[in-house]
């Protein structure tokens, strides 16, 4: 039997800004699910945003899922493969993208974990720690999908 892959699921965003908290809410729900299933090879983490030190963290895993809220026109959620990006300047001063983190990981630590970005569609972004109803629906749909996806991944690795 093959060894199970080490997996990191990393949600980010600010839960104090309504639907920007989708990433953290996703991780909270996954924590329960993983605990119930006793999958010790899956680690979870959250933060307000991604930053350069996350390149060191993901280097320790075979498979990485970033989870973030999005305003992009996706249907409820989308799961896309992340490739190391070209080394172009980021728009923001203090945060970086998943592709940037993966690129930095590759350059600094010579590791390129298989990396995916789960985008959850959000709608409201005011100063409130509460997901909108639409975002809650998207969270549920994304959890259903992702948990099935995880089961398949883990079964395929056996």
């Amino acid at each position, binding site marked *: 039997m093959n060894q199970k892959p080490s997996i990191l699921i990393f949600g980010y965003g*600010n*839960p*104090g*800004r309504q639907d*920007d908290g989708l990433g*953290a809410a996703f991780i909270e729900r996954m924590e329960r699910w993983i605990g119930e299933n006793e999958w010790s090879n899956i680690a979870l*983490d*959250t*933060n*307000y*945003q991604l*930053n*350069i*030190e996350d*390149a*060191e*963290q993901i280097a320790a895993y075979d498979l990485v899922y970033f989870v973030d809220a999005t305003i992009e026109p996706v249907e409820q959620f989308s799961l896309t493969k992340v490739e190391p990006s*070209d*080394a*172009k*300047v*980021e*728009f*923001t*001063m*203090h*945060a970086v993208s998943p592709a*940037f983190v993966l*690129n*930095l990981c590759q*350059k*600094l630590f010579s590791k390129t974990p298989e990396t995916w970005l789960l985008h959850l569609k959000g709608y409201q*972004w005011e*100063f409130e*720690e509460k997901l909108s109803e639409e975002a809650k629906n998207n969270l549920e749909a994304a959890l259903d999908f992702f948990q099935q996806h995880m089961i398949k991944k883990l079964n395929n690795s056996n």
Partner: protein
Amino acid sequence: MSKKITIEPVTRVEGHGKVTIHMDAQGNIQQSRLHIVEFRGFERFVQGRPYWEAPVLVQRLCGICPVSHHLAAAKALDVIVGAGTGDGLTPTGEKMRRLMHYGQFFQSHALHFFHLSAPDFLFGVDGDPAKRNIIGIALTNPDLAVQGVMMRKFGQEIIRATAGKKIHGTGAIPGGINKNLSIEERDEFLKGADPLNADKMVSWAEEALDFFKKYYFANKDFVDNFSYFPSNHLSLVRKDGALDIYHGVLRAVDADGKKILNDIDYQEYDKYIEEEVRSWSYMKFPYLKEYGKDKGWYRVGPLARLNTADFIPTPLAQKEFEAYKALTNGKPNNHCLHMHYARLIETLHAAEMIRELLHDPDLLGDDLVIKGEKQKEGVGLIEAPRGTLFHHYRINDNDQIEMANLIVSTTNNNEPMNKAVNNVAKSVMTGKEVITEGMMNAVEVAIRAYDPCLSCATHALGKMPLELTLVGPNDEILDRKRSH
């Protein structure tokens, strides 16, 4: 007749910013303006909320420096719960907060240097933009890039151990803290395997400073002359004049070093500081009332702190401070790009302070909170990495916040950032009608020196691309460039 160049927004600056540069028909720079959309909704948002929620609520402002807001709010609420004005906490309470704050400083300054400013030094302000970031450094100088990443990680781990968690930390509460440091946590930070231990962080902070000094002395003319202008400087200092980023009195000096705000109690800041509204900007312009709008504006941040402080209370940083002060014969340093030099001296100081605090048994104590006679109003002031941060709250009889006023570091630096942009525009854009990437980045280098967090100043979400527009004498658009 004038022409106008607009840069909107600024890359590698959080939030929404736009730079407009006005030219006359002869191509001379008439005026430059940095527009930041300041949203004042947060002060209204906290009204009606129980006061004890504020240290967690304010972290909603910004994911960049939540610890700064967390601590400034907690300090204001210390006053409200009768725990004094910053120096009345238990030793464990105060030192745990200081450790959290130095951890925040260390990681924030490391990010600025390795990710944002070092690329400009390594590859040139007008160098290839594809290389001008930490990935470019990783390709050419991997050891330096690894240092940057691991210094960030160390600072983040300090924050996690003191604030409790990465998101919405709860470590600081009105009157103290809710946890001490465990022996295991302390030992990990002191004796952890290289590189994640305090000794290594001190040594790497010294190396980063050496890297900058080498660059500086090889490019002295450029660094000294890039957007130089005299100004007042404002920051907290310890009562004996030492650099202190957590607590002290408020001091301002003018460009010659004369004290123009003489170590006042910051509970009375509103007697001395006023905020001007200008029609073209959403962000206010703070100034010292006594000196008026034209002469009372000031800089905050690393450059200002090393201009107001008399000394640094850690040996390695003090030695560097003396060499740094000698460059300007002991007078205030008004060189824009020396902000990076000052920031790295502070990084070294933060590393030394973290190490010193970790050896202090008070961090392991159990006496965490102190309370006294409740007050209706309190001001919390700290030096955030990018400058002085004011939190001011007043509560009603139901313990609800009825008034909040925040002046964030980026707002304090509003006028100097405008001056810095204008200086650079005069130097690189006079007579030009085509905007090059090098010109755009030169303007950004001036703004980035202040490490502005526009997300914080604007309380805004999102990232924006860079756009620069050149508008002619009749307001016609001559050129427009968008970086991404």
